[in-house]
């Protein structure tokens, strides 16, 4: 029983960690802010929740499991709220949600600032 639990928890932790790496890779590889948000949302959902499930399975008391679960509930509500805040701010700030190429003009942004 405990072996099966360890295997399950190990699998969750491993897949969660891989998703975190893929998410970081996405943030680097994707072209602009809006598409990068999609990469980051993998860490918010799949990565974070699989790591939490893996840790809950390893928890040695019920109360520790509950605390990890509460972290999950808080993340469940705050992660999308934060993503939306960033996306909405970018939209209001004038980034184009339809043309990733248009958002890459770093030189242009620096000219504006000067």
């Amino acid at each position: 029983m405990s072996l099966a639990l360890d295997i399950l928890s190990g699998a969750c932790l491993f897949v969660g960690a891989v998703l975190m790496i893929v998410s970081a890779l996405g943030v680097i590889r994707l072209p602009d802010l809006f598409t990068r948000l999609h990469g980051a949302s993998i860490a918010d959902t799949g990565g974070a929740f699989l790591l939490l499930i893996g840790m809950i399975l390893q928890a040695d008391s019920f109360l520790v499991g509950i605390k990890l679960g509460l972290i999950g509930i808080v993340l469940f509500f705050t992660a999308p709220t934060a993503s939306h805040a960033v996306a909405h701010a970018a939209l209001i700030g004038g980034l184009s949600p339809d043309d990733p190429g248009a958002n890459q003009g770093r030189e242009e942004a620096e000219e504006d600032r000067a």
Partner: protein
Amino acid sequence: MVSARTFSLFLVLFATWLLLSGIWDPFLIASGAVASLLVVYIAHRMSVIDGEGHPIHLSWKLLTYLPWLTWQIVVSNIAVCRTILSPSMKLDAGSGWVPASQTTPVGLVTFANSITLTPGTVALSVYPDTIQVHALDRAGIEELKAGEMNRRVRAMEGKA
């Protein structure tokens, strides 16, 4: 006198106290009860114990919505990972407008949050009857326009 909603807020707060403390001595349990009562009293004075502040009427319907949402999150996690890891990375990113038929603020926020929580789609702006969505793949917007998530959230928020 005390509405079911107020009483359930007290129970939730008190249960949270007990589960976070984990120390079962009478003094701490009594402190928890007093603290919970104080919070309920303040929340009552601020009139935030309503369908928006403590939406208990959604509890049962969440039980059918959450598993479906979890499945959607799993599916789109895989899709976005595949996009990120593909060597050529052909993107068809863009934004679009998705109709939202929810009638309550809680329902609308749940729909927008569900869209954002699903990797590959982010809610950009929320209006009473429509949501502007950015998607990593435009197919994601078409899927939202087809409206299954919209219908499910509408069914979950109930009549109003």
